[in-house]
């Protein structure tokens, strides 16, 4: 998906460049249209897919001639791509550590700003077969608990929360991402899982969510930043403003994100 998107953007740029060269060759009598089409490229954590697509449309509506192109993926993947020279204008990360990697490579256009936060929530199949009502219930044997692996952010958060709650978790599987955890719960093979509040909201009626107080011990903060060397610096900053402003915050809150 992300490859084809990027390829699309690249080929568009190539075609535009060739067209421009041809036009220049034809003579100076032809004028370019006044509102030159611009593409703003936003790299964002996959958990932002719904909200940012929505915000992108709103941004395009108020900025005629501007197309917002998204590349959603794991934060670490996106950081690696930016480090390899991917043409991103804006980067929105799901955690602070991945954002910090950009700072060491001097790729941050300014100081990053936190725009949202997310906390863990217990997720169960709709009928909650194991009758989970608290975080302590996750320590019971035989419930087929599935969490993220400690190597990935949602797993690190789960580990932190478990330590804070002093509950020993015995998961049957440590998944690669929250999506994988969610899939195991919706299929019914896992009777409980730990995912983000936004994931529970997005899954709707397919799952049942259980909020627990200890979640506050691992709050995941989402920072956003413009990328050094962006050709659309001004537009990139305007997009950041949209996300941080009232419109952005309403959309994010609606999806289950908390304020930073």
């Amino acid at each position: 998906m992300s490859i084809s998107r990027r390829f699309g953007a690249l080929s568009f740029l190539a075609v535009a460049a060739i067209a421009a060269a041809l036009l220049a060759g034809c003579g100076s009598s032809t004028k370019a249209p006044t509102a030159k089409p611009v593409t703003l490229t936003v790299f964002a954590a996959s958990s932002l897919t719904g909200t940012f697509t929505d915000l992108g449309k709103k941004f395009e509506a108020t900025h005629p001639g501007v197309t917002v192109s998204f590349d959603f993926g794991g934060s670490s993947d996106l950081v690696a791509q930016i480090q390899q020279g991917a043409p991103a204008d804006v980067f929105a990360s799901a955690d602070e550590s991945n954002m910090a990697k950009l700072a060491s490579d001097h790729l941050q256009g300014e100081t990053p700003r936190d725009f949202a936060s997310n906390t863990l929530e217990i997720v169960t199949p709709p009928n909650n077969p194991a009758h989970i009502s608290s975080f302590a219930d996750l320590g019971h044997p035989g419930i087929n608990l599935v969490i993220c692996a400690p190597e990935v952010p949602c797993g690190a958060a789960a580990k932190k929360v478990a330590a804070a709650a002093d509950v020993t978790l015995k998961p049957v599987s440590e998944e690669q991402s929250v999506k994988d955890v969610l899939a195991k719960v919706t299929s019914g093979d896992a009777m409980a899982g730990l995912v983000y509040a936004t994931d529970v909201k997005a899954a709707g009626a397919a799952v049942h969510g259980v909020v627990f107080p200890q979640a506050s011990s691992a709050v995941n903060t989402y920072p956003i930043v413009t990328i050094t060397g962006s050709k659309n610096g001004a537009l990139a900053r305007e997009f950041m403003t949209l996300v941080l402003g009232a419109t952005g915050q309403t959309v994010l809150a609606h999806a289950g994100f908390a304020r930073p």
Partner: protein
Amino acid sequence: MTHQRAAAIPRWIYLPAALGATFVLLPLIAISTKVDWPHFAALISSDSSRAALVLSLKTSGASTALCVLLGVPMATVLARTSFPGQGLLRSLVLLPLVLPPVVGGLALLYTFGRNGLLGHTLAVLGIRIAFSTIAVIMAQTFVALPFLVLSLEGALRTGGQRYEVVAASLGAKPTTVFRRITLPLVMPGLLAGAVLSFARALGEFGATITFAGSLQGVTRTLPLEIYLQREGDPDAAVALALVLVVVAVLIIAIARPERAGR
């Protein structure tokens, strides 16, 4: 071995052939240049790496054995009998070859998962497959089986039935013929198929992560470990990827089909 001159091939064909070989080999070279050699030993000998390697070898071995047990009869039926719908059956059996492994994993989940087709029956019997090593072996067998069936069926067809006919005329019952004539004669094909199956099982990722989950020492095989480490410790991921490549190359080299030939 022989000094016979092979039939000439067009000279130009070397160019695309070399291009193809480069396309396959260059990424392997690239990955070895990315390895953090000074820490290589430490990276691949961590608990999680060792557990993943051992689990991978064990499950791939088990699924190869399962492929032989199920695939030999399947190939025999496909190669030696004819019945209506056989062509369709062959295509279906070979389907995992072309299916994305994730789809295979989903299919297994909907069959053996808790809410799957057989889920209730299995639950009554007290058998839990999801999140167990059995699930890993099943996922690997599912994707690797067509490799064995395909190469063995080819060997059976090429070999023909002349020796079997003679053996039967000497009074050997079908089981004796199968055991003493058919199987030994297709052994090179069977071995080649088993090696392919093992290699496929070793590399299996999509069906495993979908169906079996990922837990150190239980279901997290080497490819899953590599994928996971890529997130947290890319150096370890690269080192493990190289280990996987080396293991695969070793297996294919040791049991390559020409060696198994008569």
